[in-house]
C-alpha cells in the first residue's frame, strides 16, 4: 500500500473495533470476579485475550489487507513457535506430579 492509499473500512470500522476490544477487556474483568477460579478461569481469560489479539492484528494492524501469503507467513510461523514454547510450559505439570517414567 502506498503513502496515498487509505486502508479498507472507514473510521467507523476502527471505532467499532475499538469498542469491541474495550468490551472484551471488560468481559475479562467480569469473568475474573464471576466466581470461577483455577484452570477454568485461565482458559476463559486466554480465549478472550486470543480473540482480542486476532481482531487487533487483523483490523488495527491491517493484516487482513495484506497478501494471503504474508498472512500465512505471520500466522504459521508465530503459531509454530508459540506451540513449541507452550510445550515447555505444560512440562511444568510433569514436574509437579513427579517424573512419569519413574513408575
Amino acid at each position, binding site marked *: 500500500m502506498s503513502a*496515498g492509499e487509505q486502508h479498507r473500512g472507514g473510521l467507523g470500522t476502527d*471505532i467499532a473495533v475499538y469498542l469491541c476490544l474495550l468490551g472484551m*477487556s471488560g468481559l475479562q474483568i467480569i469473568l475474573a470476579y464471576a466466581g470461577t477460579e483455577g484452570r477454568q478461569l485461565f482458559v476463559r*481469560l*486466554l480465549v478472550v485475550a486470543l480473540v482480542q489479539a486476532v481482531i*487487533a492484528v487483523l483490523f488495527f494492524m491491517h493484516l487482513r489487507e495484506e497478501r494471503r501469503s*504474508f498472512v500465512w507467513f505471520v500466522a504459521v510461523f*508465530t503459531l509454530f513457535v508459540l506451540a513449541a514454547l507452550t510445550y515447555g510450559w505444560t512440562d*511444568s*505439570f510433569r514436574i509437579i506430579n513427579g517424573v512419569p517414567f519413574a513408575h
Partner: protein
Amino acid sequence: MSEANLTLGGHGTGISESPPFAIPTKKLAMWLFIIADAMTFAAMLIAYGFLRNATPNWPTPFQFSPSIVNVMVMTFILVSSSLTMLIAVRAAKAGDKRRAFTWILFTALGGAIFALLHIHEWVGMIEEGARLFQNPWGTGLFGAAFFSVTGLHLLHVTCGVVALVVVGLRYERGRYNADDIEITGLYWHFVDIVWMFVVPLVYLLSIAR
C-alpha cells in the same frame, strides 16, 4: 551478468524485482521484529505460567481498588491510544500532515500517561513490601516474575513513546512519509496487544478473593 554489473561489482538484481509479499521492505522488517518480540513476551509469560504452576503459595495480592481499577484505566488509555494512532495513520495517508502529527502526539501522550500509571502502581506495591525476591504475601518468585513481565512491557511502551515523538517530528518536517507513520503504528498496536495478555495472566489470575 551484464558488463555494467561486473564493473560495479553488482549482483545483477533486476530493477523490476518486487519486494517479498509485495510490501515495502521496511514494513516487512517491522513485522519480523514484531514476531520476534512476540516470541520474547510469549517466553516470559510461559515461564511465568511455569513458575506459577510449580509453586503452591503463589500470592494473590491485587485488590479491586486500587490495583484492578488502575489496570482498567491503563487498559482504556492504551487501547484508546491505538485508536488515536489509527486516526493519525489515516490522516497521514490522506496527506494531512498537521492532523497526523496532532494525533501522533495524542498517542504519545496516552503512552506517557500509561507509563506513569504503571510506575505509580509499582511504587504502591513496593511500599506494601513487594521486592524482586521477597514479598509479604507468599513465594519470593512472585516479585521477580511480576516486575520482569510488567517491566519489559513498560520498557516497550516507553521506547514506543520516544519513537512516536521522533517519527512524528521527522514526518512533520518532511523527512518521513505516511508509510513510516504506519510502520510505527504497527509497533504501537503490538504493544497494546501484549498488554491484552499481561492483564489476564498476571493481574486477573492473581486477584485477592
